[in-house]
C-alpha cells in the first residue's frame, strides 16, 4: 500500500510538470502568432490595399495623361493647319525688326500702283521720296492676336486704272490685303484723272509657335 501511495504522488508532480511544459510550450507559438504575426499580416494587407488604391489612381492619371497627350497632339495639328492657312499672310513678327516681308508686300503694292499709272498727288509731288503707297505705322490688332499693318494709297489716276489696281491688290497671291475705306474725288476740271484715297490693311502672319503659350 505504501508503494502504491508513493508512486501516485510521483506521477502527480510529473503530470503537473508535463502540463506546465504544455502550457509554456503552447503559449510561446500562440503568443508569437497573435502578438507578432497577426499584426504584421494586418499591416501587410493595409499596405497592399494602399498599393491597390495607388494603382487605381495611377490608372486614372495615365488615362488623364493620354487625354493631355491627345490635347497636345490636337494643338500640334491645329498649328500645322494654321500654318497652311496663314501661308498667304506676310511675315513680320517681333524677331523680324526690319519687317522685310511686309516691306516686300508694300513694295508689291507700289509696283502695282506704278504699273497701273497711279501718280502722286500734286501736293506731294515736290516731297522727296514720296510714294503713292506709304505706311501709316499703325498696327491693327484683332481680338485673338492677328495683326494687320495699315497702309495708305493716295494717288491720282483714271477710274479704270484704279479699278484694275484694286482688283490686283484684292487678289494678290503673296499677301492678304483688306481694303478699309475708299474716297474717290472727281476731277473738278472735268479731266479723267481723279483723286483716290484708299486705306488698306496687310495681314501679318502670327508667331504660331507662341500662340497660347
Amino acid at each position, binding site marked *: 500500500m505504501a508503494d502504491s501511495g508513493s*508512486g501516485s504522488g*510521483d*506521477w502527480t508532480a*510529473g503530470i503537473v510538470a*508535463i502540463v506546465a*511544459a*504544455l502550457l*509554456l*510550450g*503552447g503559449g*510561446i*507559438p500562440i503568443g*508569437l502568432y497573435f502578438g*507578432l*504575426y497577426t499584426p*504584421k499580416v494586418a499591416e*501587410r494587407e493595409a*499596405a497592399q490595399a494602399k*498599393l491597390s488604391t495607388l*494603382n487605381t*489612381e*495611377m490608372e486614372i*492619371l495615365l488615362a*488623364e*495623361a493620354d*487625354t*493631355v497627350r491627345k*490635347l*497636345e497632339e490636337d*494643338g500640334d495639328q*491645329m498649328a500645322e493647319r*494654321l500654318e497652311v*492657312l496663314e501661308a498667304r499672310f506676310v511675315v513680320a513678327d517681333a524677331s523680324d525688326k526690319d519687317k522685310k516681308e511686309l516691306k516686300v508686300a508694300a513694295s508689291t503694292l507700289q509696283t502695282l500702283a506704278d504699273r497701273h499709272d497711279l501718280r502722286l498727288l500734286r501736293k506731294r509731288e515736290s516731297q522727296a521720296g514720296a510714294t503713292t503707297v506709304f505706311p501709316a505705322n499703325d498696327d*491693327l*490688332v*484683332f*481680338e*485673338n*492676336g*492677328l495683326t494687320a499693318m495699315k497702309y495708305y494709297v493716295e494717288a491720282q489716276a483714271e*477710274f*479704270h486704272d484704279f*479699278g484694275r489696281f484694286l482688283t490686283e491688290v*484684292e487678289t494678290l497671291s503673296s499677301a*492678304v490685303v*483688306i*481694303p*478699309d*475705306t*475708299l*474716297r*474717290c*474725288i*472727281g476731277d*473738278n476740271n472735268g479731266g479723267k484723272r481723279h483723286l483716290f484715297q484708299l486705306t488698306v*490693311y496687310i495681314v501679318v502672319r*502670327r508667331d504660331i509657335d507662341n*500662340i*497660347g*503659350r
Partner: protein
Amino acid sequence: MFELNLIKDKAKARQRRRVIFLSIVSILFLSGLVAIFVGSLFWRETTELAKVNDAVAAREAERAALDADLNIREPKAKKRRNALIDAWNEDMAVLTDRPYFNPLLEDIADNTPQTPDFWYKLITISVHTAQGGSGPRGTAGEDEFAQSKELLNTRSLLADGYIKIEGSDILTESELAQVATSMSELRNLVGEPTFTLDVSNEITPPNAPEDRYVPFTMRAAQTQFSSGVIE
C-alpha cells in the same frame, strides 16, 4: 525480499522520471518547432511588407510626379489648343469675310443712266456704323478691338454726283432707279442702292440757261461682306 522491492521501486521511479522527462522534452521540442514555424511566417510577412512598402513608396512618388506633370501640362495644352482654335476661326473670318471694293467700282462704272451728262464727283466707301453712313469709328474706350471688328464688318457706300435733267424730274428719277436695279454686284455686296435727287439745289450753266443739272446722292448701307469661300 525487502531489498528486491526496493530495487524494483527504484527502477520504476527511474522509468517514471524518464517518461516525464521525455514527455517534457518532446513538448518543448514540438513547441519550439511550432514557434520556429510561426517565426518563419512572421519573417515572411515582414519581408513581404517591406516589399509592399517599397512598392507603395515608389508608386506614390510616380503618382506625385505624374500628377505634378499633368497639373502643369494639362492647362497649358488646353490653353494652346483653344488659342489655336480661336486663331484659326479668326483667320477664317479674315479670309472669308473681308470686303472687296472692286465689284462696287465696276458696277458704278458699268451702270450709268442713258443721259451722257452724268458724273460722280465723290464716291465714299466707309465703315458702316449703327448711326448709318460714315460715322465715327469705334473708339478704344468702348472696345479695344472695335476697329478690327469693323474692318470685317459692314460698309456704307455714298456717292454724290450731278445729272442733267432731260425730260422731267420723274423720268430722271425713274432712270436712276433702273440704274440701281441693274447694279447686281453692288446690290449683292452693299445692298440695294437708292438714288435721291436734290432738285432744290439744281444748277444752270450760264452759257446754257435752259439746261438743268441736279445733284443726286446714291446710298447703300446694309453691307455685309462675305464671300463664303477661301481663296
